[in-house]
């Protein structure tokens, strides 16, 4: 195992070096960094050219220049080695720019990746379980459609319809009757198709979802919910309890008493916390919120440990998930409370969904206002990135699940009388996750690279912008810095994928 890891790292470094040479040559040949100066008519043109040649070592042949660059880049690996990724054509050190770009890109892709994985796998599995049903066909078509949509198209469409549309609508946030009826019917059709079952059950589900959605939309209209939203003292506890119940049904099944007890205890603590925290939450900062999530998880784990009887593992999982999701409800409620003062802020002026940038300049406000602002700026790019990778994951999850469901051990599990939930969640789902891990890992690297287009559309200054402006200004070093990060991330994640694969599937052994 150790020799595998060491050998793999050695080979990866060699690959990286070779690829960096190819890339360096390509970038150097693609554009001449002096282009803009040749065209300039400033009096000290020659001095500027000489200066830039000196900064970028343009007097040396490309391989020599590459060696110098490699030497500087290699020092990034050594701690306190003095990281040197060269300078831009303006003589700024690239490593400083890179640090800023990496952090803002991570901000952008983290949520998108997590959401895409969770939603993609869920939808893929539902699709597989209802193979050749209307749901399956609709999801399949939707994922093909999203898959065929270039990201720039998605970005532009989101900007025009979601951002402008929502902002205009928010001036007078009223659902007309046509909207209420239409949306309720869509919700009804969706839920009855997803939940499925015999005709009677479908009808009940359909009626219930139409009614609930209709009432909700109507209620939102009369109370002008979108201008001053909140979950309130009734809906928030109900939501927390619903999350608890969902975790129980998903992980342990309806007949597991210990699971109900665990989730129940966690939910009671959280509902208590919800009422207790109401007054203090506005004073919390980012660390306070993180602490709250940790505490909620710990409460859940403790509940699971003491109430789990013989199934401590699943009970602890239920507890932790219920705790974190419930705390999520509490935090979301607090954000909703902030919403009104956010949209009425003079800098926002009632148009909360921005289409460019990563923050509103000169926005005054506490942690909640500031982070709402960040969320709103991340909203559209995140949706755009999410939908694109979501499409792929849905296809893979569906395919993997179908292949697993055709296996003999699934037949065995059914034959020995296990409930359908156990067969799907324990036997099929876990095994179908194995191939998905590899794809997810490979995709995370690609997602950072793929953000070039999305970042450009939303004028977001992350890694993609670094690359783009570097290439546009014929500036080789930022492009190379971008490449190094992408390549290292890709190689690392591929490596992790292989390790994970061999850990998950005992038939695969690394050697």
């Amino acid at each position, binding site marked *: 195992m150790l020799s595998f890891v060491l050998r793999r790292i050695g*080979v990866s470094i060699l*690959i*990286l070096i070779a690829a960096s040479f190819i890339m360096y040559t390509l970038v150097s040949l693609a554009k001449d960094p002096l282009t803009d100066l040749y065209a300039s008519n400033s009096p000290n043109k020659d001095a500027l050219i000489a200066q830039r040649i000196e900064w970028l070592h343009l007097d040396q042949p490309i391989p020599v220049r590459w060696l110098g660059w490699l030497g500087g880049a290699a020092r990034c690996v050594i701690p306190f080695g003095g990281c040197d990724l060269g300078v831009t054509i303006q003589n700024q050190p690239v490593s400083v720019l890179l640090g800023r770009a990496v952090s803002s890109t991570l901000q952008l892709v983290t949520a998108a990746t997590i959401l895409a994985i969770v939603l993609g796998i869920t939808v893929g599995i539902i699709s597989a379980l209802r193979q*050749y049903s209307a749901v399956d066909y609709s999801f399949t078509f939707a994922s093909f459609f999203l*898959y065929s949509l*270039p990201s720039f198209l998605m970005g532009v469409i989101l900007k025009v319809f979601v951002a402008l549309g929502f902002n205009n609508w928010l001036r007078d946030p009223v659902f007309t009757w046509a909207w209420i009826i239409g949306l309720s019917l869509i919700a009804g059709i969706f839920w009855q198709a997803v939940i499925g*079952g015999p005709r009677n059950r479908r009808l009940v589900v359909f009626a219930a979802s139409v009614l609930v959605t209709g009432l909700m939309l109507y209620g939102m209209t009369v109370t002008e919910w979108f201008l001053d939203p909140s979950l309130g003292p009734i809906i928030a506890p109900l939501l927390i309890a619903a999350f608890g119940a969902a975790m129980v049904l998903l992980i342990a099944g309806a007949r597991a008493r210990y699971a109900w007890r665990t989730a129940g205890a966690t939910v009671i603590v959280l509902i208590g916390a919800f009422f207790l925290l109401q007054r203090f939450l506005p004073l919390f900062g980012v660390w306070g919120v993180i602490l709250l999530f940790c505490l909620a998880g710990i409460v859940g784990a403790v509940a699971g440990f003491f109430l789990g009887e013989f199934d401590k593992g699943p009970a602890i999982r239920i507890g932790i998930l219920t705790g974190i999701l419930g705390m999520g409800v509490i935090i979301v409620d607090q954000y909703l409370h902030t919403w009104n003062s956010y949209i009425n802020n003079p800098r926002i002026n009632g148009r909360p969904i921005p289409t460019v940038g990563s923050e509103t300049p000169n926005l005054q406000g506490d942690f909640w206002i500031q982070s709402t602002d960040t969320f709103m700026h991340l909203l559209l790019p995140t949706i755009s990135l999410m939908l694109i990778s979501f499409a792929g994951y849905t296809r893979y999850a569906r395919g993997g699940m179908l292949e697993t469901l055709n296996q003999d051990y699934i037949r065995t599990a059914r034959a020995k009388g296990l409930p359908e939930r156990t067969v799907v969640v324990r036997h099929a789902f876990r095994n179908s996750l194995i191939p998905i891990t590899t794809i997810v890992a490979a995709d995370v690297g690609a997602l950072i690279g*793929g953000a*070039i287009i999305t970042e450009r559309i939303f004028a977001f200054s992350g890694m993609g912008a670094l690359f783009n402006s570097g290439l546009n200004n014929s500036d080789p070093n930022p492009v190379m810095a971008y*490449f190094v990060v992408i390549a290292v991330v890709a190689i690392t994640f591929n490596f992790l994928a292989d390790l994970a694969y061999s850990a998950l599937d005992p038939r695969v052994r690394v050697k």
Partner: protein
Amino acid sequence: MTIPMGANFEAPSEPAAEPTKVVTADEKGLSQGRLIFKRFIQHKPALISILLFVLIVGFAISATGIFGIPGWWQWNYTSLLPIQNNGMPTLTLWPFSLGDHPFGQNNVGKDYFAMVMRGLVNSAYIMFIIGGIAAFIGVVVGAIAGYYRGWVDSVLMRLTDIVIVIPIIVVGAVVGSAVGGLGPLVLAIFLGFFAWTGIARLVRAEFLSLREREFVEAARVAGASDARIIFKHILPNAMGVVIVSTTLLIAAAIILETSLSFLGYGVRSPEVSLGLLISQNEAAFQTRPWLFWWPAAFIVILSLLVNFVGDGLRDAFDPRQKRIRFSKVKDLPKDAVVESGLSADVPEGVVMTRTGAASNSGVSSEEPDEQSFEPETRR
């Protein structure tokens, strides 16, 4: 790729009932190629997609002309015309008429129909050239690596790793910014040189497993040369992987080309491509939305159609994920013959795979409640 061909046939009923055997064309001893073709034809979305694709691209080519042969459309994509009717599209569907400028005119008066058709042709042929070059290099590299193994394999696969490390959009942007001005053909050829890695890996894996099979050994014993074994014996068996991955690569290539053109690294003005048209008219969205919608619609349609074709091909070559559920007799394939059943009724809920292997729907993934609705014929 091994396709289980009728080998694992099971009677579609439980022991108590009379076995009812359904024979489809799959079992009549057709050749592999015919079977795959049949499965592809039966995949309706894929079939419709390929027809539509040919139709759309053919229409575009006939409108703009090709290889210097002029098309039937009156305007050229570069000619500046007086703006009529504020550049609005003149296309009317009922009664159908194209009018002078069916897709409108852009802000300097160029006929947008000519531009979109020209862009469509450019995008289509760029994606085929990328796909063709990538498939060729990928097959050669993968075949040699997988067949010879050893140090040849190591060297070629490390080479593949080196290219794979550079994301295609990055290398595309760099290459495009260098050669994009030289025209779409040069751009496509250069992009093809960096897109082959996925195919190479798949073909190699396929060759590694196929080279151990008996028919390869037989060919070797009979004195066949390496080249003959690779191209005559192994490659035809690996065609499934090649065709499917090339189709999917072509679908990815259209996105790559349009994205690069959108970013300004791909096709350059005055030449047009669908991505370039969107990038030029993004700002005009509020005032002249049709300038945005026509190219956008064609990008999505082309890419969607190719993806559907790829999906259909994958199902045709590798039907492992296919489980066709015939709940009614009329849903059976036309050539199905009910052989040894007591009646011509196929029991409801019989699950049939395309390979002819049929089994009980107890194995299918439906909820138990749904099965209780089925009649008791098979119980």
